[in-house]
């Protein structure tokens, strides 16, 4: 269950309390996130929506340990990440977070197999164990027969599948998706969303996703809107703000 009121039972997988992020631009402080609360349970699939500049990606970066908040705390699976040092946070990311980006961001000179293997190079797994994990991940995304292809030899949808395989190969605690279908046509976007749904439904993954697309957001269990730096459940926002089928 997803809550934004800060009244969670303390057992949620992800607990965000009083999160603030302020940027300083041109001598002016811009508060992107304001005392934001969030509780996400294991196996939840949450979509974040909101206008450009509302802080969706900032929130995702903070949840993924890529950025540090100005105030507040983020606790994931019992680990409070907001006070971790840079190197500890890097290790934490490697173990707990799978990233899926809009632009795929695959290494063009590596094959699909080698791209997916990258996160495992940071583990103590042997070559044979790594191979097994990579093959499994690529099978899950339906690209077992394309593992020796380079990104340029794949379609956009296939590239995004490789990105998803890379994100899940190390079996992270949760997945963060930043506009995962933003660069895809509708058919490919549907396929990718079906795959993410499968990861949630079949494999019990927890997924937090930022999207502009209401159709994509509609496939999440919960859709939250970022407004003026705070999260609002889609059902509670005024008509016209979240047009088109959000729950």
């Amino acid at each position, binding site marked *: 269950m997803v809550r934004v009121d800060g009244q969670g039972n303390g057992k949620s997988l992800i607990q965000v309390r009083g999160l603030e992020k302020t940027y300083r631009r041109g001598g002016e402080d811009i508060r992107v996130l304001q005392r934001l609360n969030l509780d996400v349970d294991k196996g939840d699939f949450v979509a974040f929506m909101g206008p450009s500049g509302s802080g969706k990606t900032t929130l995702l970066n903070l949840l993924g340990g890529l950025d540090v908040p100005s105030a507040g705390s983020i606790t994931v699976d019992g680990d409070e990440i907001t006070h971790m040092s840079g190197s500890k946070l890097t290790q934490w990311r*490697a173990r707990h977070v799978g990233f899926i980006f809009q632009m795929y*961001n695959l*290494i063009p*000179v590596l094959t699909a197999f080698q791209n997916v293997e990258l996160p495992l190079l940071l583990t103590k797994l042997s070559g044979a164990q790594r191979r097994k994990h990579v093959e499994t991940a690529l099978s899950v995304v339906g690209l077992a027969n394309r593992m020796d292809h380079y990104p340029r030899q794949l379609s956009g949808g296939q590239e995004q599948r490789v990105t998803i395989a890379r994100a899940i190969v190390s079996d992270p605690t949760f997945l963060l998706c930043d506009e995962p279908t933003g660069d895809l046509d509708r058919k490919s976007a549907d396929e990718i969303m079906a795959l993410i749904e499968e990861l949630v439904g079949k494999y019990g993954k927890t997924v937090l996703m930022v999207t502009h697309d209401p159709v994509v957001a509609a496939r999440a269990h919960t859709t939250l809107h970022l407004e003026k730096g705070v999260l609002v459940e889609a059902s509670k926002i005024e008509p016209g703000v979240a047009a088109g089928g959000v729950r």
Partner: protein
Amino acid sequence: MKFRRLIFANLFRKKIRLILTIGSFAIALVLFTFLAVVNSAFNRGIDIAGADRLIIVNRIGLIQTMPISYGDKVRAIPGVKYVTQDHWFGGVYQDEKNFFPQFAIDPENHRKVYPEFIIPDEQWNNFVKDQQGAIAGATTAKRFGWKVGDRIPIKNALYGATKTWEFNLDGIYHTEKADGDQSQFWFQWKNFDENVPAAVKSTAGWYILKLDSPDDAVRVAKTIDAMFANSSYETKTETESAFAAGFAKQFGNIEFLIITIGSVVFFTLLLVTGNTMAISVRERTAELAVLKAIGLTDRTVLFLVLIEAMMIAFIGGVLGLLLAWASIPVISVALTGLLPPLLLSKTMLSLGLVFAIFVGMVSGLLPGIGAMRMRVVNALRRV
């Protein structure tokens, strides 16, 4: 090394740029090695000089002579073991381009003072008995295709009217060390003394002393110079290495020239490789950000950039050294007579490679630190 595939893949990502960078590295290293070899050639005399040998020259200059009687006087000084004298000949073999140093030597003591020159006893004994005899260094003999028993005509215009001196090649000497001077040509001082004008007779160009102990060098040198002070032929006595250094300086400040050119090469190389690495890292900002996002530490990212720069340097360095190794003997032959023999030693090759890798590391440092400090969030925002 789990990241080797990533490193190699990145290395060969832009093949033309890689080839050009490696090429510039290789050419620069050839130039750098050539300069080092030239410097070494000029300093070789200093490096191989005996610590227990002194050289006496006329205080006015090397081309001024001294009386032959100085030899006996010097020999009487305590601490002096052997004394021998040389005289510059300055002849021409067939063509002026065929330069090699020729000396009139004293067969009685020369071998005692210079034990590092190796000559078979039989050849040496033939030379001692033959007043028209000569000994040539192995390099010079090889250069002109001389064999023991050959008659060697050398034209000379320094001592009276131009005349061709005929010598019998009685022996060929080698040196203990491969980089020793094997270019000299020696003939008997007696032959020289009997055939030069009266003004040159009974003179020595310079004396070489072998001491009982190198510790005596300062005392003996001071004694000799004091002994001949205020005479018509004042002397300047110094260690063989100081003499060799002074001789090398006659060609100008070679070392300064070489260091200056070398520094320019070094910094140009740094800029070229640094620029290549900077562009390469910049092009991969998003990829590096992703690598950091999935858990690569800042240090690992720095390590990846440095390794890549060092590999470019290593490949360029090996290529450059191979080119130098192949071309320096050819250049040395082409410059015979103008420069001392150019020898590329294993030490120089090793130092060249270390230098190349060092340049690679330094050039990768700035882009590497940039990649290390890069914030993932900022980098991804730029994509």
